């Protein structure tokens, strides 16, 4: 089922939580909503589910305007951040709930519901736990029951709000892989919210980067990582370093010296240069480069991060060096970003 969010605006008591958001979600896609806290991820997810109504704009399921359909009519599976399992029901009853409340004609018989619950428990690898209560499960198990419960109604779209938010790193990684497998096996259109970029980049077909109620960029993991389209995305996804620069005559300048990067299309004026700390080329001689003194250095896993001080205004920038690089305190290092982007200075 394709889902199309068309120019949706959502206000809570005048406060705009989403401004004019548009998004096309393709059928069968696994898509991640990624953004800092308060950026409107949950709000967007709840709008798609029908738990909120848009202030303006519309949401289409297929070709149909679903904006005014109730959540029941939309047939979405929603997994809540804190699971929201029914604590007085067993695992099997939780999973069977969506089938039990169906109107008479479409409601399967009890044995059928129970059988379906057992199948879903197998799918989420929790066979044998059907008679437990939610309080008797671990966090990861609860999470999986919540997912099984949402899938029991055979939803057209599966929506997950920070599905692994409350779990420790180890379990998160396991469940991540497992969710991908389930998605591939069932083919649901799936949207999940996360503020963990690693999770989004690893798991999703496409990532939607959000900030302050707006969508900043939509793309595959490679696209948003390699070609961020705004300073925000550069800063938010992966590590980035930035340096204030000047653009003149199609060249990038720092302190009246060109640094060997040309920008034929950019207009003159102040700008900011962004690049990844590891995506730099170290140079020996310096005719057109950024050269600075090492002022701090720390070991990060397989590499070394150094902070360079350069220019007349003691600006600092962070780059990554191979561990075996002889750069010691106070030594001079010259480099040029290999992949980079210029954004004009914001007013």
């Amino acid at each position, binding site marked *: 089922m394709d889902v199309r969010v068309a120019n949706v605006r959502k206000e809570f008591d005048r406060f705009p939580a989403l401004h004019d958001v548009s998004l096309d979600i393709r059928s069968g896609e696994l898509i991640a909503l990624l953004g800092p806290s308060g950026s409107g991820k949950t709000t967007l997810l709840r709008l798609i589910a029908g738990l909120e109504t848009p202030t303006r704009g519309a949401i289409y399921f297929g070709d149909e305007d679903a904006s005014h359909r109730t*959540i029941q009519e939309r047939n979405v599976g929603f997994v809540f951040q*804190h699971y*929201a399992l029914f604590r007085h029901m067993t695992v099997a009853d939780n999973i069977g709930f969506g089938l039990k409340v169906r109107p008479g004609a479409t409601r399967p018989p009890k044995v059928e519901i129970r059988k379906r619950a057992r199948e879903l428990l197998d799918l989420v690898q929790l066979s044998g736990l059907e008679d437990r209560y939610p309080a008797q499960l671990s966090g990861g198990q609860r999470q999986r029951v919540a997912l099984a419960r949402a899938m029991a109604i055979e939803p057209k779209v599966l929506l997950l709000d920070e599905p692994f938010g409350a779990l420790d790193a180890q379990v998160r990684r396991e469940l991540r892989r497992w969710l991908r497998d389930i998605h591939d096996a069932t083919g649901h259109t799936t949207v999940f919210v996360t503020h963990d970029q690693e999770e989004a980049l690893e798991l999703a077909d496409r990532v939607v980067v959000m900030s302050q109620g707006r969508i900043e960029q939509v793309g595959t993991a490679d696209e948003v990582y390699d070609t961020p389209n705004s300073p925000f995305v550069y800063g938010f996804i992966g590590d980035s370093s930035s340096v204030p620069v000047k653009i003149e005559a199609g060249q990038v300048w720092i302190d009246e010296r060109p640094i060997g990067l040309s920008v034929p299309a950019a207009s003159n004026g102040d700008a900011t240069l962004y690049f990844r700390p590891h995506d730099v080329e170290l140079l020996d001689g310096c005719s057109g480069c950024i050269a600075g003194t090492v002022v701090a250095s720390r070991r990060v896993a397989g590499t070394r991060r150094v902070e360079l001080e350069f220019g007349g205004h003691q600006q600092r920038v962070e780059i990554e060096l191979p561990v075996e690089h002889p750069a010691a305190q106070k030594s001079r290092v010259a480099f040029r970003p290999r992949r980079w982007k210029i954004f004009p200075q914001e007013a």
Partner: protein
Amino acid sequence: MADFVSTASLHAEKNRATATTESRATRWVLLALAFGFIALFLLLPLILVFAEALKRGVGPYLEALGDSDTLSAIRLTLLVAAISVPLNLIFGIAAAWAIAKFEFKGKAFLITLIDLPFSVSPVISGLVYVLLFGSSSLLGPWLKSYGIEILFAVPGIVLATVFVTFPFVARELIPLMQEQGTGDEEAALSLGANGWQAFWYVTLPNIKWGLLYGVLLCNARAMGEFGAVSVVSGHIRGLTNTMPLHVEILYNEYNAVAAFAVASLLAGLALVTLVLKTILEIHYGHAIAGSRGH
């Protein structure tokens, strides 16, 4: 009050015990004061009620209870409770639902209104009904022309009782429902349940012990209410006398055995309520947590 026993609060308890600096003597004095007070003002009267009622033996006690006016007082009390408790059950759930699960203007005002019967003397509550339905009011004579009697009749007693008891269920449920939030209901709706199913299968089981607790208190008050009912009842023997009113009449007639016999029933009700309440608090304290205003 017995509250919510979690590990956190147990820890707090422990810390407090070691952190308090009162000497043993102070503690003993405080405990003795508390227990002495309870014995003097609660236990002793309770024992006296039963002692007085059974002073002439079981025969006269049962005879007093078998009196036709007494029986009709018991019937009326049960009837009033049977009407006002369900009414307040429905009202309490509706009000708590609205307050806990929706945002609307005038919420604080509604909460204040629910508390009104707690802060107003019951006699005044009764007088309000006299003003509303009395012979010099607008409504009273108009209703009377249709043959409907409110004041000095059963409807008036029910109204007054409903008024004084309506905070009980609502007050019990509001903090409980606020704490539980709307997550479970949203989950039920997202799974295709309609509003009624979400309420029946999800909300109600989540609040059932708190609800029972509220109903218990509501019932105890409904059966025991004196002030408001006294104003609107008219004290017609065999017709508009509830048990508490009947006790007063018997007592004023120097019929001590009968008066205390009926009083012993009310005291018995209080004891049963207390026991049930304690059982609920012990076993389901975590499920009826929340602030207690009474």
